[in-house]
């Protein structure tokens, strides 16, 4: 009760602080990712690892065709590369561009304020969380997501996706979603939690690299980097710094504009936490 007014003032000062110092957040951690698109081969290993780790249901051809699939991590493939000039008109003269796309865990996530029941919100870890059992399925969040990385359980898939004995493979550390709820990439929150627990038991801070997301762990070319952006020694922090990308900005003021780091739809000012490194082409 006494926290009522305190909460009001604290919330307000955090907010103003956030406005003044771009990207300030009163977070314990801020997990972020770096994906080097020049290393990504588009092999799908991350995507399948995600299915295995996060109890993702397969939906079958019919529902996939109806675009009701739920692949938290999807590998998109594009053929146009405007930056390096048009490819030959009648035949492909270079490869494709692959884009691993999952929840970008925006700091100013457009999905969060629109959820009527606050089933999606920002955790003190700086993650955009989805609480399945609170979700009532209004799907507003997915409509407001510019990346379209929120997936809705249009059906119950338990019977078809995990026919016995497949349910034994399900990861007990996270829920299996039933029909009518939204789900999305959590940056493998169960792994974050486990690492935090271990660290706490051992009375130390979480080490950089101690938490590996399933996609990162399996990526054959090690194109994915994951870590705490607030930890200045972390590889992720270093990479963000090296590429002169800062949170809380919708246009980066790089001293070297040729650096590869960029965030997708930065101009929407949703403050995503996934830094992509541009694909490189020999031209």
């Amino acid at each position, binding site marked *: 009760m006494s926290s009522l007014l305190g909460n009001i003032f604290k919330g307000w000062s955090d907010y103003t602080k956030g406005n003044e110092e771009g990207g300030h957040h009163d977070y314990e951690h801020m997990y972020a990712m770096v994906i080097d698109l020049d290393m990504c081969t588009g092999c799908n290993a991350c995507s399948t690892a995600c299915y295995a780790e996060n109890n993702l249901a*397969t939906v079958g051809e019919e529902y996939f065709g109806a675009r009701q699939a739920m692949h938290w991590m999807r590998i998109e493939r594009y053929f146009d590369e405007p930056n390096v000039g048009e490819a030959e008109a009648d035949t492909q003269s270079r490869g494709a561009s692959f884009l691993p796309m999952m929840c970008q865990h925006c700091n100013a996530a457009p999905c969060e304020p629109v959820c009527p029941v606050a089933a999606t919100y920002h955790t003190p870890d700086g993650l955009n969380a989805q609480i399945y059992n609170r979700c009532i399925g209004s799907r507003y969040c997915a409509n407001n997501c510019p990346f379209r990385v929120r997936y809705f359980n249009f059906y119950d898939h338990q019977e078809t996706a995990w026919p016995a004995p497949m349910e034994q493979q399900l990861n007990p550390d996270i829920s299996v979603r039933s029909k009518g709820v939204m789900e999305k990439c959590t940056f493998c929150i169960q792994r974050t939690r486990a690492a935090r627990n271990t660290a706490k038991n051992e009375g130390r801070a979480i080490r950089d690299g101690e938490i590996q997301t399933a996609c990162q762990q399996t990526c*054959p070319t090690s194109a994915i980097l994951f870590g705490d952006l607030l930890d200045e020694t972390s590889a992720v922090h270093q990479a963000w710094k090296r590429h002169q990308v800062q949170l809380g900005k919708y246009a980066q003021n790089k001293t070297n504009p040729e650096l590869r780091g960029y965030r997708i739809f930065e101009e929407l000012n949703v403050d995503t936490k996934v830094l992509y490194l541009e694909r490189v*082409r020999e031209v």
Partner: protein
Amino acid sequence: MSKTKINRRNFLKVLGLGGAGAALAGCDMPSTVTLEEGEEKIYSYLAPEEYVIPGVGVWYASTCLQCPAACGTHGRVREGRVLKLEGNPDSAVNAGKLCQMGQAALQAHFNPDRITAPLINGQPASWDDALALINEKASGGNVAWMTGTVSGHQRVLLDAHLAATGKGHHYAVETVNARAWTDAGKTVLGDAMPTLHLDKAKAVLSLGADLLGTWISPVTFMGQYGKFRAAPRGVLIMVEPAMSLTGANADQWVAAKPGTEAAVALGVGHLLMTKHGLSLNGMPNATSAFQSMTPAQVHEIAGVSEAALNKIADTLVSHSPSLVIANASHAAARIAMVLNIMLGNVGKTLTPGASIAADPLAPMMGSSKDLAEFAQNAAAGKIDAVFISGANPAFVAPQGLDMAAALKAVGFKVAIATCHDETTKACDVVLPLSSALEDWGTHVPAYGGKPGVVHLQQPLMEPLHADTRGLGDILLTLGKSAGVDGLDAFEDYYGYLRTAVSAMIGSELEGDWHRVLQAGQFETRAASRAFSAGHDVALGFSETAVSGLHLVTVARQGLYDGRHANSSWLQEAPDQISKAVWDSWAEIHPKTAASLNLKDGDYVRLTTASGAITTRVFIYKGVHPNAVCVPMGRGHTDYGRWANNGVNPLTIVDAHLGDWQSSEIIATASLVKIDAAGENRHLVRLMDTDQQYGRKLVATIPAQQFGRTQGGA
């Protein structure tokens, strides 16, 4: 040793879901009262190991058998169930990484369509009856084995069994193989499996070798590719008729007419000689072959422009050391080897491989040549009985081989399989095989491992189905009844394996064995090899495939040759190139489509001399206008609930068009006719666009910029 076994087994007991069952139905339903008392059961352990704690996952090392690469894995085991596989960071093959097929080994293990009991003529039977029948029918005469790639002690036992039963032959069948490359290596450099150093190469030219997708050991190559792309950044050039995953990552992708990669390679060699002044000392045959293939001829034969060819040659020279690899044909592979010699790559990016000293353990690499031979021998009545394991000849054989008749001609067929497939259906006895996650084994990676390292496969959980047995156990039983010497001492394969491994590591100590289990691998003596000087082999290529539309069947990482089609994860993982799921498609070039008046999603009938299939077209520019590319893997008829979709292009491959110097069935040689089949249905894909519409999604920068900012070249 039996004592260890009991302990070992106990920790694996499924009993003891210790309070946290599978979190099924995680969200409430209106009718479900979730706070019920007495609704769920808890089984306690009987006498668990101290480190087995319900609710805490433990990682165990094992080996992945999803493709012949034999990557090391770690499996997360909780409450006696394996939940997740990761790469074994200690393995030199995959360095902690895993591809999607490896991830999906879980689904092969938990597959709902597993065979759970022995079958005799399709009827459930007991092991005793099945083994008795096998003893009766397959104890003498011409007993053959057909497997995929096998290595380690399973191969030892298998060889022993073959030797004991007499005149039999071992057919190792792999549709997706590197036989062209290994043969060329052996012929030109005297080493079938030289070590490639992608990470040291500054340019890589691949002639149809999908090294990031399915070639030899993709995870190894992808690991190296990561380093190859770091500053200074290497350049990847791919020559092939239809875009593979490697092609999709290439800086320069060159579409060649199907089957003409060798001509392109010769053309490159020609330019290297004439334009860049490189020469081949002491290889007059090769030199003349290069000299006789002018860029103009290449353009005519392969449809590759002189500019593209020049660019390839320039890049290879300017980015030295480079590496040329090939898998398109034996001819192309040989030329690639010679090009490596000419470019001076040998010893830099191409070094001699190493194998383990214990040769019987070395992998028996499969090929499709064995498939054809098996079909011929079987049809000729030369095989009395066959054991089939890890191969699905009824699915992968082209119609021209008439595998159905061949199998019928074999008197007695035993399938040892985890799941029903087209082959088990044709077999007299089906023995239920433990999944790769329930079995013991040793595997020698064909490529990429540390020299002399053997990967150990250990069960990650108690068999799901009590009546299944491991391949090693079956081989041991068969060996014993065939009278193989020295097997009677072993109660089971575990005992045999432990003894054998102990001998190899030179220690009988419990602790050392546990260290091996923990590492998932052990080192034995390595035998290093050396290159012989470049042999001046004849270079040439088959000119059968230069005009008309050709069928190109390719394997993609995922369903592979079809063995993973019963995994819903892999069926639903979009194909890397077309992004299609759950069904087959035929990739054709827009020009071809225009000339045939086809649009995306039109059903077409592809007819070759061997038969016809009907599937939908996917039109895009990543395929040569003369090629129709149909990825393999689908078209199963009897392979579980998820596999029965799409078409199998392997059936219409023209089996009689062998490669130039081998009897390999090659994937690019069949002339094909396309007819619209009338119907049109949208091909189900992850995305229906290839364009970014001006959004900065995947931004691309020129390599010069990368050089400036990342310190690369």
